């Protein structure tokens, strides 16, 4: 079984030896499969529309017609800008996307990190403008769902509508995550456990994470100083809770982390 969530960087098309390694059954790269006319990408947030009993096969077919695969975006490129007219919501297919706003003084505020299978742009439905930037943190691929077409579809197919409501509700819930008065340890534990759970729910490793976001982004998102992020992570490492190697973080004692994060992690 593979122990890295997503490592596009490991594989270069020109590297024949690595391709051989894949052919020999050593997994080098994990990308969600592309799906086909009957299935969505394995990680897709809309994938569950056709589950569990396959009631909305017709909806699935029509949904596929309005999905557009976009990308790759390179690290730092924007999928949409704050202020752009709203026309579509997006699902991340591969890579990581950051959403953030910038105030009048140029200070950035990181709103979230979006992993494969997760939606971005849901907060733009009203007032029909994207309220934030969506920026690729590594090589990212997304699916574009035209919103007017999706809304029309949702009126005809209850499964699509339900899924849309579920996604909107989850998106609202996420905003509450950092509102409380929590310590740096709690925030970081919750951040790591949250990422691990989200990866695990898409079929990726539950314990091995690759952090595509800069520590400044993590710090900004958690409302901590960058040096605090590193100091706490180093302490977690000394305590045997995690092992850090560059951007790769292994949760070596997820139970202890989950206990630390118990007042924040929910849902």
């Amino acid at each position: 079984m593979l122990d890295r969530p997503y490592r596009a960087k490991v594989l270069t098309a020109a590297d024949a030896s690595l391709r051989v390694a894949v052919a020999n059954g050593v997994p080098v790269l994990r990308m969600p499969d592309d799906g086909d006319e009957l299935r969505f990408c394995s990680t897709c947030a809309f994938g569950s529309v056709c589950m569990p009993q396959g009631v909305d096969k017709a909806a699935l077919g029509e949904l596929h017609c309005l999905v557009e695969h976009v990308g790759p975006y390179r690290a730092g490129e924007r999928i949409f800008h704050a202020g752009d007219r709203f026309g579509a919501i997006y699902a991340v297919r591969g890579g990581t996307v950051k959403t953030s706003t910038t105030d009048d003084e140029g200070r950035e505020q990181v709103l979230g990190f979006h992993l494969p299978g997760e939606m971005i742009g849901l907060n733009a439905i009203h007032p029909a403008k994207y309220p934030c930037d969506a920026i690729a943190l590594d090589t990212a691929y997304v699916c574009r769902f035209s919103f007017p077409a999706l809304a029309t579809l949702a009126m005809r197919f209850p499964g699509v509508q339900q899924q849309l409501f579920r996604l909107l509700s989850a998106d609202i819930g996420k905003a509450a995550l950092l509102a409380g008065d929590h310590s740096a340890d709690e925030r970081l534990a919750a951040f790591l456990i949250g990422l691990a759970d989200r990866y695990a729910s898409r079929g990726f490793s539950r314990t091995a994470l690759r952090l595509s976001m800069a520590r400044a982004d993590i710090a900004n998102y958690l409302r901590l100083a960058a040096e605090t992020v590193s100091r706490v992570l180093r302490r977690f490492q000394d305590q045997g809770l995690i092992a850090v190697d560059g951007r790769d973080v292994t949760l070596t004692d997820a139970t202890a982390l989950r206990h630390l994060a118990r007042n924040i992690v929910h849902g």
Partner: protein
Amino acid sequence: MLGAMSSHPAPVFDPELVARYDVNGPRYTSYPTAPEFDARFGEAEYRAAARASNEDPIPRRLSIYVHVPFCFSPCFYCGCARIITRDRGKAEGYLARLHREIELTAPLFDRDRQVVQLHFGGGTPNFLDWRQMAELVESMSRQFTFASDDEREFGIELDPREADANYVAMLARHGFNRLSVGVQDFDPEVQVAVNRVQSVAQTRAVIDAAREHGFRSTSIDLIYGLPRQTPSRFAKTLEEVIAIRPDRIATYGYAHLPERFKAQRQIDAAELPNAAERLALLGLTIRTLTDAGYRYIGMDHFALPSDELARAQEHGTLQRNFQGYSTHGACDMIGLGMTSIGRIGDAYVQNAKDLVGYYAALDAGRLPVARGLVLDTDDRIRGDAIQRIMCDGVIEIGAFEARHQIDFAVYFARELAQLRVLAGDGLIALSPTRIAATARGRLLLRIVAMCFDAYLSRPRELAPGYSKAL
């Protein structure tokens, strides 16, 4: 761990084998080696690498190398980048640029990244007088965050002919705790032939001062293969060095390349030991030092079992970098001064190799980056294989495959064919789970490492330029 423990047998000196593999090859203080660095890598690339290095969840700590290129007089064997002058005033111009370089470099690295290692090399670092040296270190300590006394490893190479106990005391006050002293040979006739006359007493004086002032480690450099050296005379040098009992001893083989290094033209080739005598000198050195309780680390390096290098090797945490062997592998390395090399994350970077280029860049407010290289996936995989061989003498294949997510036998099919030849010659033991240097092979680590070097097969590398493997 188990593998690393069992993989450091005392080296067995096999003169026939050593002679057969006495070929030119890199010393692998980096992989790819410095000749592969590319002039298209410039200041912008360096800044990008530094920026990215701040973005890890736990950014690596810092190691700084400072090059002082000046020497008072030329040692004829030397192949280093240095400038001969007795005029200490020359240092002022250089120092002004060094201070400028520190001002430009320090802000690139987040302040919570501690400097755990600092090394002054040359040239002759003590060409700088105590006031200049103190100013330099103080300036760095203001602009970087130095680790606490017990966590830092601050070293300096000293020429004992130009340093006294007061100088060493000043170094201790400024946080230095490691001293490296060039000796090469104590024999008076050899010293005259190489233009480096230095008494045992002078050498002892600085080492004693270092110990008195709390330095944690002392090191002596020797060279075998110098003119007029004979085993019986070199035995006496070894005896005198062992009596001083430095924690580390490095014994470099002299490489006579007068067409490349001008100073070496002063050496009379007729006075150099022949191949058989060189081998005898090497055999004598290994036997004498190991009999005296020194442990062979690899390449040219010996250390007492109590020294951190020996302990790091036992624990499998030894690293190889531009300063030879080191216990601080997980650092980003900043090179300051002319010709200095740094490594930031996956990027190697080298400064301008002459004073003109170094001064011009800094006078224009630019970082003096001349060349560099960003590692690709293949470089990282091969670099790891070479590190493991040079430091542990062993590659544990299962762990290696897990680290890089490759199938070793497939990825290194061509290299394994070469390694089988070395196994046939008794340099390594080869099994499906590990590659381990034998006791005889430990003296030929770079021959094993060369099998993994993808750049050696390129035509440019056929040209001479590297020193012999021993």
